[in-house]
């Protein structure tokens, strides 16, 4: 159904080479782990796949049933979590989710949003303002934001960042659910998270 192809991806900034000639293919049910030293380019690689950053060379192709998805539309099929991401502090968690649903054009109502909050374990705190959220709660909300549109491709950059063991269980359940029908790419240095992957690419080699 879906597939992701990464072909000869390289990225360099002025004089620093991040990585060169990364290629791999993915199909539903697979989990890829990207690992490497701090600064090796894991986050950048994920951002390139998401379409946020242009590679210096090579390309990323995502397809549905053989039809390639143009870059502008890729964001509809991708959900991403990253440490650098933030959600709107002035809004409550629920309002944040509803905003992103609206902006993505996804049908939603109070119920469905609350369900999503439950899934990430934030149901009791749904009406709190994000600025009052702890970092772990924020991380869970980010996960929720990445899932609202049921993306075939999930990009998780350090998903366990700031999470306690309960939070990690949430991440696990998300990954296993995603395995049933979609693709996941995890970038991390934590052995536990890297172990979720069927395959591993080490950017420091």
């Amino acid at each position, binding site marked *: 159904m879906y597939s992701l192809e990464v072909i000869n991806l390289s990225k*360099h*900034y*002025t*004089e*620093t*080479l991040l990585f060169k000639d990364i290629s791999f293919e993915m199909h539903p049910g697979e989990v890829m782990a990207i690992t*490497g*030293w701090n600064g090796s380019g894991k986050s950048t690689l994920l951002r390139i796949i998401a379409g946020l950053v242009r590679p210096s060379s090579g390309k990323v192709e995502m397809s549905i049933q053989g039809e390639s998805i143009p870059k502008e539309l890729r964001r509809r099929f991708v959900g991403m979590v990253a440490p650098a991401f933030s959600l709107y502090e002035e809004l409550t968690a629920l309002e944040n989710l509803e905003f992103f649903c609206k902006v993505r054009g996804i049908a939603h109502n109070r119920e469905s949003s609350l369900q999503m909050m439950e899934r990430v374990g934030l149901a009791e705190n749904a009406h709190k303002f994000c600025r009052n959220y702890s970092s772990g709660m924020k991380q869970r909300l980010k996960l929720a934001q990445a899932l609202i549109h049921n993306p075939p491709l999930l990009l998780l950059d350090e998903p366990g960042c700031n999470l306690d063991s309960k939070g990690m269980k949430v991440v696990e359940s998300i990954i296993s659910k995603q395995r049933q029908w979609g693709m996941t790419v995890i970038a991390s*240095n934590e052995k536990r998270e*890297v172990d979720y992957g069927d395959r591993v690419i080490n950017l420091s080699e």
Partner: protein
Amino acid sequence: MIAKVLLTIWMTVIIVAAFLYADAAVGFPGETSRILFFHVPQAWVATLSFLLSMIASCVYLARRNPKADNLALSAAELGFLFCLLATASGSIFAKAAWGSFWNWDPRETSIVILLMIYGAYFALRSAVADPEKRRVFAGVYAILAFVTVPFLVFVVPRITASLHPEDTMNPAKPGMDPKTLKVFLGSLVAYTGLFIWILRLRLRLLNLEGMQEPEFVVREKIDPEGEKP
């Protein structure tokens, strides 16, 4: 090579002719009308480069070929230079002919605005770190600036004429006698030639710089605990 020599000779001829061959125009104090041979072509080149820069920017945004952006940049640099020259020569003329260096008549205003646009363009380029983004942003700005030009052309003359009821300079279209016309056109050609020559040089330089394979700093494999991740 030959072109360069010819251009140099041609330019010299024009400069000499500007002073000795053509007659000073009637109605202008002293010899001041001779500025026509220098000032107008400079302004012409300045505007031409802006157009060129804008078109190159469009090409870049469509194709993302860095050479197109190099062309946009070179054209902008040269355009800026000629714009400065035009402003300076215009000021000198203004002082000699009307007694003050600056008057805000339509032509002067437009050239200053062009100068500001160029300045803003360079400021933008130097403020963006990522080269790819820099090119895109610069290109977008060039197009936006160009879009405001028709408004300027339309609006400025109506406004400044009525704000400052001074004689607006219009030596560009006096009845030119044949000698003056010849020298003027010759100067136009000379300046355009000069522009093209320097443009090509600058473009070549930028393209060569771009072609260099960046020497990548080999990053230290930091291994704090002697373990692989």
